[in-house]
């Protein structure tokens, strides 16, 4: 596959003049991300850490070539921002914003899929390819290049796991934080399919959590032999009571769906080792 992102990916930051947008633009630039322009309506002519700012993506694209977008726009305005990125054919569109109404995400993802555009998120930490690029807020210094992909519904838990891998001498090929909302542009199944085609990845750590049925669907895919790269799983939220949202709005048990035990059982029956503690992940990876 053409890698989702790499060191040559040219990026537009939407919401670049906000405090989060500007702070993480700086960190992305330091990591080596090729940020060509920023967009905030009404801020044409400004600069953020040397990056020129435009009112619209269209006007930015007149001056720069760009492939992808990272969205830091507040929830209230995020629907339009993502729509604008889809309209201008940017891909992937990495949506960091938390709190976008789920029905909006549902409509955005449908539009994006029709055009073959990848949305990552919303409510996600983004994508990082060690020593090449990062689109989002994942801290770069904990990574070491290698062949383990980390796919996760969580941010900080991903950092915890990546650090544990690095400390055990297991480098990473890519980290994708798919996000914590109930509906996301790329779910765990779709992310794993992308990774299956990713030449630099040999093994996968899949970090799921309470809520939804994606983990069960992943297990099904592995059983059918459609995913051949070995996977180690971790499921967060075994302490979650039914009906309560555990921080992520997608982390909720509704009726029978979403229970962590069902996810763990599904993985185990597909022969996927499930770590009970984060610290067990490196050893389980070495064993597969």
């Amino acid at each position, binding site marked *: 596959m053409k890698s989702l992102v790499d060191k040559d990916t040219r990026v537009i930051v939407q919401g670049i003049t906000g405090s*989060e947008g500007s*702070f993480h633009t700086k960190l992305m630039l330091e990591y080596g991300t090729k940020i060509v322009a920023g967009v905030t309506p009404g801020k044409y002519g400004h600069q953020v850490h040397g990056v020129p700012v435009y009112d619209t993506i269209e006007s930015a694209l007149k001056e720069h070539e760009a492939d992808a977008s990272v969205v830091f726009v507040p*929830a*209230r305005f995020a629907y339009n921002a993502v729509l604008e990125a889809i309209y201008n054919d940017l891909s992937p569109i990495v949506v960091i914003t938390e*709190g*976008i*109404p*789920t*029905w909006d995400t*549902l*409509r955005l*993802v*449908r539009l994006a899929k029709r055009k073959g555009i990848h949305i990552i998120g919303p409510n996600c*930490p983004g994508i990082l390819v060690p020593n090449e690029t990062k689109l989002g*807020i*994942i*801290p770069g210094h904990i990574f070491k290049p290698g062949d383990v992909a980390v796919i*996760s519904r*969580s*941010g*900080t*838990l*991903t*950092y*915890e796991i990546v*650090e544990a891998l690095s400390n055990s001498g297991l480098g990473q090929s890519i980290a994708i934080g798919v996000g*914590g909302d*109930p*509906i996301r542009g790329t*779910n765990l199944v779709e992310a794993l399919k992308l990774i299956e085609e990713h030449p630099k990845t040999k093994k996968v750590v899949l970090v799921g*959590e*309470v809520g*939804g*049925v*994606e983990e069960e*669907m992943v297990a099904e895919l592995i059983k059918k032999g459609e995913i051949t790269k070995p996977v180690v799983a*971790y499921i*967060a*939220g*075994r*302490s*979650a*009571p*039914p*009906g*309560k*949202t*555990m*921080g*992520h*709005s*997608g*982390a909720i048990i*509704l*009726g*029978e769906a979403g229970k962590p035990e069902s996810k763990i059982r599904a993985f185990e029956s597909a022969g996927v080792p499930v770590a*009970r*503690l*984060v*610290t067990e992940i490196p050893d389980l990876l070495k064993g597969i």
Partner: protein
Amino acid sequence: MFLYEHEGKMLFHQNGISIPKGRVVYSPNEAINAAKEIGFPVVLKPQILGGKRGKAGAIRFANNEEETLKIARELFNMELYGEKIERLLVEKKVDIAHEYYLSLTVDFYSRKPILIFSTEGGISIEEVAKEKPHLIEKRYLDPDIGLTPFIAIGVLNKLGISGESAKKFVKIFTNLWKLFEGNDLFLAEINPLVLTKQGDVIALDARVVVDDNAQIRRAWIGELKSKRTGKESLEIQAKKLGISFVILEGNIGVIGNGAGLTMATCDTILELGGKPANFLDIGGGAGPERVASAIDLIMKLGNIKVILINIFGGITRADNVAKGIISAIQTLNLKIPIVVRLRGTNEEIGREMLQSVGINAYTDMIEAVKKAIEIVKGGNEK
């Protein structure tokens, strides 16, 4: 957010779905007045957010004032599925000819709404699916088309309801769709939907779940939240401070940053033999004030033996966390031991600050969890 039955029914009523005449009451005396106003016989239904009330024998009928008073007193003294009963819905009893099931759900996996209809209502749809799957009709809907009359009639025909009979239901289907799509709902379930002996179609129950994220454009969600009481009000109060808070049942107070890491912290406590008292995510980039309010919230739970704080800072700065912990210890005059695990941005500064108040922060999460459990089991070492 889950809605109470009476809140869901209010939405139904506002969107042209018939419900029985009824009133919410907060005391046995109010129940009598409501029953008199509505007219006997009445049904008294405890308003709780989870569980099966019918199976627990908590849905009761009354034919006169005496019975109403007796039953209301009993119900107000009950606890159902861990919830104290604080309000009852008193409703006119309906003459049921047949019970159906109707729901609209957002299917997160397919990213599509699903319509489910069954001619077998009044019991859980999972049971019907197991025993009489041929009596259920399930359709994925295209959100751009919605639930139109022709789709509704198609579904009804499939289950043998046609002609004049089908027409009676169509309005309920399309009105439920309008409510569902126009209010950012995750679930709108009517079970049972009844055909009365008089030939009316009425929603006897309402299970509604709304997307919390939609509060930015739906003022009514915030209004309902502000009326919540008990445990839930603490959780809602936390949300206003930017804190995600869920009360659990143990004695180890938990604070983390990021939902996943905080869940993993609670899980690790369970895994190693302890019991988390709560889930509390201080969110990204929390300043000292938010950390101090987090500790304050947890102390309101009572029965806390130790507080475990697990931070892997990216946007969140470790020195801000340390500042918050110190200020909470001082202003709340905290006597409870605090175990801290600190990693990430400005870790060294945070660590030194904590040392000045006698807290040695851990770098390893598992060690910190073990220490917290040891304190609960062993004694009160700081």
